[in-house]
C-alpha cells in the first residue's frame, strides 16, 4: 500500500519530476559546519552545467559572505554525493558524473569549522 485511499489504484501527481523544470534540474549543496547559511541551497541549473561553473560561479554567489569562504582550499575539500564519497571532475558536467535531479552535494572543508569553531 503506497497510500491509504478510498480507491484501490490511487496514484499521486509527481510535482517535481525533472521534466517540470524547463531544462533545468535541481541540485542541493550544503557546506558542512557553516550554518550561517541556515540550510543547504537549492540550485536550478541544466544537467550539462560544468562542475567548474558550479565551483567558480554558483558557490561564490552563495557563500562569499562567509569570512572563511576565501580560505577554502578546494584541492583538500571532501565531497559527498547523496551520502557517498565523491571526487568531482571540474571539466565534466553534472550529468556526466552522476549528479542527477535532486541530488545532494556536501562539502567538508578540513580545518574550517565555522566562526569561532561553532559550526557557523
Amino acid at each position: 500500500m503506497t497510500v491509504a485511499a478510498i480507491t484501490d489504484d490511487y496514484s499521486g501527481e509527481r510535482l517535481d519530476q525533472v521534466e517540470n523544470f524547463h531544462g533545468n534540474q535541481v541540485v542541493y549543496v550544503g557546506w558542512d559546519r557553516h550554518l550561517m547559511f541556515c540550510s543547504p541551497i537549492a540550485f536550478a541549473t541544466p544537467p550539462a552545467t560544468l562542475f567548474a561553473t558550479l565551483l567558480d560561479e554558483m558557490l561564490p554567489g552563495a557563500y562569499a559572505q562567509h569570512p572563511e569562504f576565501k580560505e577554502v582550499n578546494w584541492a583538500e575539500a571532501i565531497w559527498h554525493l547523496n551520502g557517498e564519497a565523491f571526487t568531482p571532475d571540474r571539466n565534466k558536467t553534472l550529468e556526466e558524473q552522476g549528479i542527477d535531479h535532486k541530488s545532494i552535494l556536501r562539502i567538508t572543508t578540513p580545518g574550517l569549522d565555522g566562526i569561532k569553531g561553532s559550526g557557523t
Partner: protein
Amino acid sequence: MTATKLNLKDRYRLLTRDLDWEYSYQNRKDVFPMEEFEGIKITDWSKWEDPFRLTMDAYWKYQAEKEKKLYAIFDAFAQNNGQQNVKDARYVNAIKLFLTGVSPLEYQAYNGFAHVGRQFGGVGARVACQMQSLDELRHVQTQIHAMSHYNKHFDGFQDFAHMHDRVWYLSVPKSFFDDARSAGPFEFMVAIGFSFEYVLTNLLFVPFMSGAAYNGDMATVTFGFSAQSDEARHMTLGLEIIKFLLEQHPDNVPIVQRWINKWFWRGTRMLALVSMMMDYMLPNRVMSWKEAWEVYFEEAGGALFKDLARYGIEMPAYAGTAIAEKEHLSHQTWSIFYNYTHAAAFHTWMPDEREMDWLSEKYPNTFDKYYRPRFEHWREMERAGERFYNPTLPMLCQTCQIPMGFTEMNDPTLVSYRQSVYKGERFNFCSDGCKDIFDHEPEKYVQSWLPVHQIYQGNCGGADVETVLKDYYKMNLGVDNMDYRGSPDEQRWKQWHNLQSAEDKLKKAS
C-alpha cells in the same frame, strides 16, 4: 402528567441519538463510504460517550454571551488605541505570524470537522464533530476581528489569507492541515482531534496567549479566554476518539499508534514556529521554549501516554529526537527566518545583549557553544552596514516543507539529511520522522507543493524572487519584509512614543 419541559439530559439524548434512523432502502456502506478504507474496525457505535453534552440551543446562547463580551473589549481596545500599549512593536510580529500561519488553520479545522461530521456512522460522533466545526469557524472569525485593529497600524497583515496559500513558510502549516484533511476521517480525528488538540495544543495556544498577556496585547488575550472553554471541549473529544478506537477492536491499536507517531512528529515540526516566537519574538518572555516543552510535553504528555499504555499505546516513535531538539529548535528556526527575512511578511532582528544573556541562561548546554557566535557575527555584519540576507533559495524537506535547517542531535553542527528513492526519483527529508511518513505513503507526498521548486518551475509568477514576493505573494517590499531595525513599523512606533534613535538625535543636533 406529561412534562412540559424536558430536562437537559433528555433533550440532549433526543437531539443526538434519537435523531438517527435505520437505513431501510440504502446500503449503509453507500451512506458512509469512508468508514472502512483506513482499516479501522468499529463494532458498536453506541459505545461512543458523548463528550460535549451540549444541545444546540444551549450552545448558541452560551456562545452569544461570550461573543458580546469579546466584541465589547475589542471596541474598547480600538477606542483606546490599544496598539500603542503593547510592550514593543517587535511583539506585533508574533501576531503577524499567528494571523497568517495559525488563524487559517482554524478555518481548515472548520472544514475538516464539518467533513468528518458527515462521514462517521455513529450519530454521537457526528454531532460532536459538527459542534467542533462551528467552534472553529467562530475562532477564525474572532481571531481576524481581534487582529484587524493591528492591520490599521502595522504592516504585513493585509493579505493573510492570500499569503497562507502561497508563501514559502506558510506552506508548512497549510500542508500540515491539507495532509490531515485529505486523510480518512479516523486519521483526521487522531491527527487533529487527538495529536493536535489534545497532545500539542498547550504548546501552541498557551505560548501565544500568555505571550499576548505578558506584552500588553489585550485583544488577543481576550480572544484566548473566549476560546478557552471551547478548547477544553475539543480536548475531551480528542481523548474520547482515541479511547473509543482502542476499545472497539484490538486491530485498531497498531493503526492508531502509527497515526500518533506521524502526527506527533508533524506537529512538533510545525511547533518550530512557536518555539522561535517564544524565545525570540516576545519582548517580555513568558518562559523558554525548552521549559514549555518540558511542562507541556514531557510531563503532561508523559502522564497521558502512561495512561494509554493499558491499551498497548506507546510514546510516539520520535519523541526521543523531539526531546533532544528542545535545546536547539528555536535557535535553528530563528536562524532560518533571519536568513530569509527579505522573503517574509514579518520582521526579524538579532537579540540585544540582555536577550542574549537570557538565552544563555535558559540554554546553558547549547546557546553559548553553538548559537551566540553565529548571532554575534550577524550583529557585527549589521553594524558594519551589511545585514546578512541569504542570497539563495533553501532546500526544503519533502514532508514538513521547512527549510533543511535542523541538525543531527549527536552533532548539532551538521545538517540532518535523509533521502529516499521512489519510482526512480530522489526525495529528501530533514529527519527520520519525515522520511518514514513519506516512505509509508509516497503516493501522497510526491504531490507536495514545495514553494522553492514551484518558483523554479515558473509557477509563481516570475523567475526572479522579487517578482514572486511582490506579485505572487503580494508583499509590500521594503515595508512588510526585512529587518525590524529601520522598518516603517519601527519608525511609527518611535513616533508614537517620541523615541529617537541616537543617530536621529545626532542628525538633529548638527
